[in-house]
């Protein structure tokens, strides 16, 4: 074991005691897989769990029997607990949010049919992130559920997630919306704003600017409802019972993003409760003893080749080279991880090969609860 030994007992405790777990991290690190493994492991150990994912891999969703739906559907799981899952289609969820907050169907229709609507929701207000947290808030009120696991959209920026509700409030309450919806004649009349709006008209054309003003004029009427809800949602996000699990892989960029994410959480007075390093090679690979063994193999190649029929000494020399190569990879991954912030407990999950999805999830679940499994090669 290295000095920075992984600690899988803390995460086991976290999984058994937390009310809300948000998995965060860069794309491609297996964040959804880790969220699903946590949810299944908790349910197998008696908790009633709801898993909310934004965009899981098709294969994973199929294997778990999750369908694209905002509503929780029960998923079969071995053990004493129960597991429900929901897979959110964020743009459909936004449409519903607009309909729900609109004073009448005509207003909703005017907004939904506007060509710039999709674009606004997709990018300005971080709608994926906001929807994920909105669901978190809503499901928190469901008394059947005692653990809610939310898989957040891929992001290296904590701000995208944490500030989404505040941005929403800011958007509806701030000057921005007022400015955009002021009739164009008075805009041009103000000495302070005239040059600016002249530039916007120049860049985007008069038609577009009128479309924009009209759209925001209507959207503004929805403001009060959105603002209040977003404030409630923000409170849920900052509650003590909400735990952040940052997931990374040993690749360079995910490690950098995991570190940045943890730092940004701290800047907001919050902490990452756990760091999960996913897809790790077995621990014995980065032991220097492996290099000694590879050397022994080269030295003894002539005598050892006799032990097995098709083998020639050169094959054992080749095998030794593979050992050296894999050791180098393992050491470089380990070095990157050890340079990460050590404030939150770190849990390591193995790189799993040649397994079906469910078997993989349960293997990862076992590792979350049993630190002695670390170091074993994991393949189906």
């Amino acid at each position, binding site marked *: 074991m290295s000095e920075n030994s992984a600690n899988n007992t803390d995460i086991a405790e976290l999984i058994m005691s937390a009310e809300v777990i948000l998995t965060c991290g*860069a*794309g*491609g690190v297996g964040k959804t897989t880790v969220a699903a493994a946590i949810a299944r492991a908790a349910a197998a150990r008696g908790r009633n769990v709801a898993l909310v994912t934004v965009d899981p*891999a098709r294969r994973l969703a199929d294997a778990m029997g999750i369908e694209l739906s905002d509503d929780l559907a029960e998923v079969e799981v071995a053990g004493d607990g129960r597991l429900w899952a929901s897979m959110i289609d964020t743009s459909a969820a936004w449409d519903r949010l607009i309909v729900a907050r609109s004073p009448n169907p005509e207003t909703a229709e005017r907004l939904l049919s506007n*060509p710039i609507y999709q*674009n606004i929701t997709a*990018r*300005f207000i971080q709608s994926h992130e906001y929807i994920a947290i909105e669901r978190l808030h809503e499901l928190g009120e469901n008394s059947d559920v005692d653990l809610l696991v939310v898989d957040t959209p891929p992001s*290296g920026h904590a701000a995208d997630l944490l500030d989404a509700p505040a941005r929403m409030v800011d958007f509806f309450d701030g000057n*921005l919306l007022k*400015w955009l919806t002021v009739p164009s004649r008075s805009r041009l009349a103000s000495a302070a*704003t005239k040059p*600016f709006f*002249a*530039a*916007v*008209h*120049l*860049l*985007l*054309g*008069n*038609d*577009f600017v009128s*479309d*924009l003003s009209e759209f925001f004029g209507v959207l503004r009427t929805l403001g009060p409802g959105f603002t209040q809800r977003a404030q409630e949602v923000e409170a849920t996000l900052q509650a003590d019972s909400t735990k952040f699990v940052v997931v990374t*892989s040993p690749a*360079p*960029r*995910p490690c950098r993003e995991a570190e*940045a994410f943890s730092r940004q959480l701290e800047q907001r007075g919050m902490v990452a409760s756990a760091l999960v390093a996913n897809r790790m090679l077995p621990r*014995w*690979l980065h032991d220097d*003893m*492996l290099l*000694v*063994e*590879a050397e*022994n*193999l080269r030295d*003894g190649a002539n005598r*050892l080749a006799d032990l*097995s*029929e*098709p*083998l020639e000494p050169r*094959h054992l020399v*080749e*095998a*030794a080279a*593979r*050992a050296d190569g*894999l*050791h180098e990879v393992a050491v*470089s991954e380990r*070095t*990157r991880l050890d340079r990460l912030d050590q404030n939150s407990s770190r849990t390591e999950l193995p790189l799993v*090969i040649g397994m079906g999805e469910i078997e993989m999830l349960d293997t990862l679940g076992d590792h979350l609860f049993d630190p002695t499994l670390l170091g074993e*090669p994991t*393949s189906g």
Partner: protein
Amino acid sequence: MNLLDYRLLAVTGKGGVGTTSVAAAVAVCAAKTGRKVLLCEVEPGGGAAAATGAKRIRYEPSATATVRLKVMSMDTERSVRDFVKIMTRVPMPVAAGPLARILDFVATAAPGVREILTVGKLAHEVRLATYDLVVMDGPPTGHIVGHLAATEGVAEIAGGGLLGRQAAWMRDILHDPTKTAALICATPEELPVSEALDLRQRIDTETGVAVAGFVLNSVRPPSLRPNIEAAVADLVLHESKRLDGTRSALRSAVLAGQLRRAGADAASRLRTDAQTLPVWALPLVTSGGDDAALVNELADALGAELDL
């Protein structure tokens, strides 16, 4: 067509496949052939500075550890000001405080405006011909189509404005298959390969931009021949005392083979479904944490793949 003879390469891939390293490797490789190259990271903080050994990164191109290679970070607010200056020859009124925010918002609100400010800036660099090659360390697969199709979207929605009227010359550069192409990255794993192949279809049908080919990144070294590997696996379990002190090495050689094979299906699917497009394979490189050293190794491997 030689990959390095394009004038603008948009590098993209699923998150986590090493898009930034590949984009930097393409840029370094081109610079080593004597070309003047600009590498632009589209998402600030993406790691292009570390990947090229640049001391700093900002909107103005900065020097890197490689001669002839400059690196920059996209800033659409700066880009919009550049446009106004280029088009009207009058500097844009200073947008400070709330005005800057509104400008930022308007650019975000209009479909394609932020993208056209990014792609347009790079197309402008191509037009100026300060560089032989401009490499875009692009957004992930989910967003690249929006960038490459931005000229159409903007012309449609804000066609009456200055930006919309600029779309024509940008399109001439972006749609010229001898000038501009996308380079799609994947690792030998199922999901990244599926996304890479899907993206190729989307770029073909939704944009007028050509696809140069695929980069298969992080390929593990070849495994032993199957019968040899099986014999090595037998040795791990062999009772002979002579094998003491070698079993971990034997075991890791077998594991190396398993890891390589785990990616082999995905890799061969990419090669098959790529049809006539080239697939350039780059090895899994370890670097002890030095991004620029890693990129240099990748650049050399790419050079070998391109028969330079």
